[in-house]
């Protein structure tokens, strides 16, 4: 009996871009959610409206262990996230976490790739890697010139940008930017929409670079019990005994070679 679902307090909430919000959550003294969290893990956030039962999984964007705070950055995608965006300082929200496995810290240089709302979890990872003395390169894929969070990476990493409309950086996707700037690294970390992750996997395999990909799937329990959130694995998974892994428990971060996407 180690885990809990708890009530966090909104420490700060701001709109950082069109439809995108940044929220710092504070946890009570006796709760170790912030002290245990690592980059790549997520929180389950719960609605106050009883008609919306299921948790909303949101990645951890930053961790402040001393102040026992966690930051999330999220896009309004529906009723649940809309409700969260209306919360103001001092209000409460039910949270479970930290959930999932997180990224692993590897030797050598790191290439972090974030696409759209997959960018937030890369921030804490960039910070941790940079603090560990690694050379960090970040490729951020945006739709247009609305480059949310970009400047926050500046203290930790060398930054490359791609935009779909070509307004900033390389026109196209993150892979186009990597090729345009001949970005090299020893390990790739990526989070973003599935087509982007497929592209990253293909690039990583072709260039024989190990890659860790953060996956997304609809969740019900968020802790590995219900088998809602599976993704296909190349080999039989030890827990499920079939070629399925649970994104919430075995992931959300997977070695690119272990999953079929």
């Amino acid at each position, binding site marked *: 009996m180690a885990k809990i*679902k708890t009530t966090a307090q909104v420490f700060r909430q701001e709109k950082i871009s069109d439809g995108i919000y940044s929220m710092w959550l504070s946890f009570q003294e006796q709760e170790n959610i912030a002290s245990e969290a690592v980059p790549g893990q997520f929180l389950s956030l719960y609605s106050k409206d009883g008609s919306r*039962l299921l948790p909303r999984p949101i990645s951890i964007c930053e961790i402040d262990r001393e102040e026992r705070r966690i930051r999330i950055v999220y896009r309004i995608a529906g009723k649940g996230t809309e409700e969260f965006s209306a919360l103001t300082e001092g209000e409460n929200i039910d949270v479970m976490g930290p959930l999932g496995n997180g990224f692993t810290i590897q030797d050598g240089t790191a290439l972090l790739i974030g696409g759209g709302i997959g960018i937030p979890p890369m921030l804490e990872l960039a910070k941790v890697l940079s603090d560990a003395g690694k050379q960090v390169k970040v490729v951020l894929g945006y739709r247009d010139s609305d480059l949310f969070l970009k400047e926050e990476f500046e203290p930790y990493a060398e930054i490359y940008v791609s935009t779909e409309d070509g307004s900033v950086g390389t026109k196209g996707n993150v892979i186009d930017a990597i090729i345009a700037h001949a970005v090299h690294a020893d390990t790739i970390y990526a989070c973003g929409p599935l087509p982007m992750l497929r592209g990253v996997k293909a690039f990583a395999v072709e260039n024989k670079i190990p890659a860790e990909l953060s996956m997304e799937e609809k969740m019900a*329990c968020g802790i590995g*019990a219900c*088998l809602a959130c599976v993704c296909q694995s190349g080999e039989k998974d030890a827990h499920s005994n079939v070629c399925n892994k649970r994104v919430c428990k075995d992931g959300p971060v997977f070695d690119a070679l272990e999953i079929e996407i």
Partner: protein
Amino acid sequence: MGSERNLSVDFAGILMKNPVTTASGTFGSGAEYDEFVDLNQLGAVTTKGVASVPWEGNPTPRICETYGGMLNAIGLQNPGIDLFVKRDIPFLKQYDTNIIVNVCGKTPEEYIEVVERLAEEDIALLEINISCPNVKAGGIAFGQDPKLVEQITRRIKEKARQPVMMKLSPNVTDITEMARAAEAGGADAVSLINTLTGMKIDINKRTFALANKTGGMSGPAVKPVAVRMVYQTAHAVKIPVLGMGGISNAEDALEFLMAGATMVAVGTANFHNPMATIDVIKGVEAFMKENGVKDIKELIGCVG
């Protein structure tokens, strides 16, 4: 605490310390919820459906939220009976609770294989999920035809070493007909309701919210339907009823008990509140205290 209140029930000859278990498929085999809940406090743990061989389940998305509930089409993904017996039963045996094993299959032979594999295992009860698609009968569920219900119950009873509980599907015209068929086949108990078949359309993508198109509806939104069916069933058969469908708190559980269920299961509510089972037990005990009820049996079937 409350030692003067008796929450224990006799369910199909098994003593349960309280009438609360988990609904199959919502609690795994307990290992994940063990981090939130003291499993020793539960009357029983009901495990996810297990088949004779591992099943891959359906493509994703497997679930979606609906107003006050959800749809699921997990497709009964399970690791197969061999790994289940090796890993999940020993895990649960560490706790002072009863084990109810939920069994699924696509043919009567597949169910029987699982039941026979469980013969020597120290488990309290078998719960037979007859909502699985019956391959032999062209994919219609076993649980939708009273003749099939009686037949499969009888065949399982011939082989089973533990009491047999048939889990009834609510997707039928008259659930009492299925309950009577199970009783006629020799069932020791029935459990209900399984999920109600539903559908959700994603209007932005102009497609189905679930890859499987349809899914089983569960959660608070189904509760009135479930209470009605439990009430009808409890009056139609003599064997005990395990009631479920939308139970998230003690008030909900008490409705089922008063409608005639001897035990209740907490399912979808675990996803919203991982401590829901314990909250239900504590709440029922508090209700008994407030209302001067010494024995839970005073409440079971107390209406109508």
